[in-house]
């Protein structure tokens, strides 16, 4: 009997084409919007998990309180101006000791722009200094933490660090630009009037970048592959200063981050009391992100809930109106031998059939919307991509069943309350 009743419900759907289309479209649209939002939220979560493996998520930065709020540009300006911030009193040995004293720390490294080829540039407000492009001072842990591999030559020796020798390791692309197919090892490059000997060059490292992105990266002087890398001590020697502006600590396993931060804070506060050091990691960023994402999720959730509520209420209203309009049909059914239970199932099926068609259309729309959202996110340069998953399909189906039940149950209940003797005498 159920199959026959479903068949009749489809016939009724066809018979009430305009009304059915309104219900189906509102349901499909509401479901598609919500499912797409859910897809993006899931993708957001997945992306976050992915970036946990990114090196920057596994770094703890240590710098003086005065740096708080300074961005790279300001930092470079001060270094370029040979005017390092007062109160920073770290030496290479200090940094090494942090690593030794904090068991969770795997790397302690320095990375800083080097002022090799300064050029004065005047802007509207003041004179300022721009450093030579992409010259980077590091220690050996920097290579290790960033998993840099040599294609040729060697990394820096202890001698190079101690003496601040004029030696460089080149990024792969800058090496190709300067030397093409030639072997650069032992050759000299010039920064202004300063000469540096090439002792090594790195393997190309473009990660999972697409072909078009690789070309873009090659043209970007701030890309790793265009770095000219020097021993950090070159700067301390040549500048006549022994201060290190800030340093970074790295770990291999993101899960150790919280513990590592605690260890570093404890060690630095006891070794350098009263220095107002800032110790920042991606955990701080996480807090900011958590707060931001909570707000976004609330807004998005409100939009989604509103869309669904409107769809549900529209459908509920239409179904209730239909029950009122077609109450005579329920009376006839009862006269022909349908029990109230059958009338309930029959009316429920009418809505469920509409819900089923709406949900199916909603799934198709969801696929389209998700592809659209992915394109929009991609063009906005977001690391997050909206992707379809079994999870979103399952949620869509569960949602459609839930909503359909909501707008089906009450009309069906109302249909059973129709007294056949009342409606059939209204001839």
């Amino acid at each position, binding site marked *: 009997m159920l199959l026959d009743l479903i068949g009749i419900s489809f016939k009724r759907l066809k018979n009430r084409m305009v009304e059915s289309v309104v219900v189906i479209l509102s349901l499909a649209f509401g479901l598609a919007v919500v499912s797409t939002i859910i897809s993006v939220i899931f993708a957001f979560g997945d992306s976050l998990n992915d970036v946990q493996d990114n090196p920057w998520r596994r770094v703890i930065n240590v710098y003086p309180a005065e740096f708080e709020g300074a961005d790279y540009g300001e930092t470079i300006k001060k270094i370029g101006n040979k005017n390092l911030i007062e109160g920073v009193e770290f030496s290479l040995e200090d940094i090494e000791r942090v690593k030794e004293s904090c068991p969770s720390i795997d790397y302690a490294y320095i990375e800083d722009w080097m002022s090799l080829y300064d050029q004065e540039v005047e802007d509207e407000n003041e004179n300022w200094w721009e450093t030579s492009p992409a010259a980077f001072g590091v220690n050996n842990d920097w290579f290790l933490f960033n998993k840099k591999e040599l294609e040729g030559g060697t990394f820096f020796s202890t001698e190079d660090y101690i003496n601040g020798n004029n030696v460089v390791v080149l990024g792969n692309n800058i090496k190709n630009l300067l030397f093409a197919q030639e072997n650069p090892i032992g050759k000299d490059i010039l920064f202004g009037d300063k000469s540096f000997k090439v002792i090594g060059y790195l393997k190309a490292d473009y990660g999972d970048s697409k072909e078009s992105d690789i070309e873009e990266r090659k043209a970007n002087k701030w890309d790793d592959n265009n770095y000219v890398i020097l021993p950090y001590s070159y700067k301390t020697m040549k500048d006549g200063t022994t201060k290190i502006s800030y340093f970074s600590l790295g770990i291999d396993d993101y899960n150790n981050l919280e513990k590592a931060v605690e260890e570093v804070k404890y060690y630095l506060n006891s070794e350098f009391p009263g220095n107002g050091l800032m110790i920042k990691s991606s955990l701080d960023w996480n807090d900011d992100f958590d707060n931001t994402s909570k707000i976004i999720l609330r807004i998005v959730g409100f939009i989604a809930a509103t869309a669904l509520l409107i769809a549900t209420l529209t459908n509920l209203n239409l179904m209730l109106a239909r029950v009122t309009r077609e109450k005579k049909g329920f009376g006839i059914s*009862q006269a022909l*031998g349908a029990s*109230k239970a059958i009338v309930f199932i029959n009316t429920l099926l009418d809505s469920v059939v509409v819900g089923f068609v709406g949900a199916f259309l909603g799934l198709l729309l969801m696929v389209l919307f998700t592809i659209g959202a992915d394109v929009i996110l991609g063009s906005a340069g977001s690391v997050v991509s909206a992707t379809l998953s079994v999870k979103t399909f399952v949620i869509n189906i569960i949602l459609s069943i839930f909503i359909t039940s909501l707008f089906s149950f009450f009309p069906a209940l109302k249909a059973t309350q129709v007294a056949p003797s009342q409606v059939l*005498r209204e*001839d």
Partner: protein
Amino acid sequence: MIKIKNVKKSYDLGVSVVNALKGVDLNVERGDFLTIMGASGSGKSTLLHILGLLDLPSEGEYLIDNIPVQNLPDKELARIRNKHFGFIFQSFNLFNELNALENVMMPLIYGKTDKKDRKNIAVDLLKKVGLDHRITHYPNMLSGGEQQRVAIARALANNPDLILADEPTGNLPSEKGAEIMNLLIELNKQGTTIIMVTHDDKLGRCGNKKVVMKDGVMLSHELVENPHIPEPTCC
């Protein structure tokens, strides 16, 4: 077959109570063709609905084959309506979204008749009422007389013991009305009990028993002069 004793029916309208039936006694035997007559508001339709188990009496007793039925659960009442009763209404009350064949099959679906038998039964019944050439037609493609014949075929679907007809010719022109009456008379001849509500004196004489209602009270309950089954031509 059917016996009602001192049946009363009142409707609470909030501001007032309407007493539609004020104590009605009635016996319907197998093979009877009972007509219920009366003016509008006399209670004849209320009585028919109670007899057809579409409504329950507020007071009194309703017996089918000496078994009280008014306290039966809804499912059982529905089963009795489906298996033992057939309804014919003034405005036909067909399902517009279903064709003639599907309309006739509806009581068979509710009665859980085998799928393969349903179609055969429905086609035979439509043939019986002279509509075998209209089985795929929808109600809006049929004339009033044809629609009422589909309704009669539907009422006969489960081979009922009793047909309850509420002004079955009320919406039809006289010649079509006569056709329908002839069909009912023929069914009665074949043994189906019929209870018909009408306000037409001529149609009221088509049965072998006649009840006249007024203000919820049975004014008269008499045998029609000619105790035999009336001739179809009488109408």
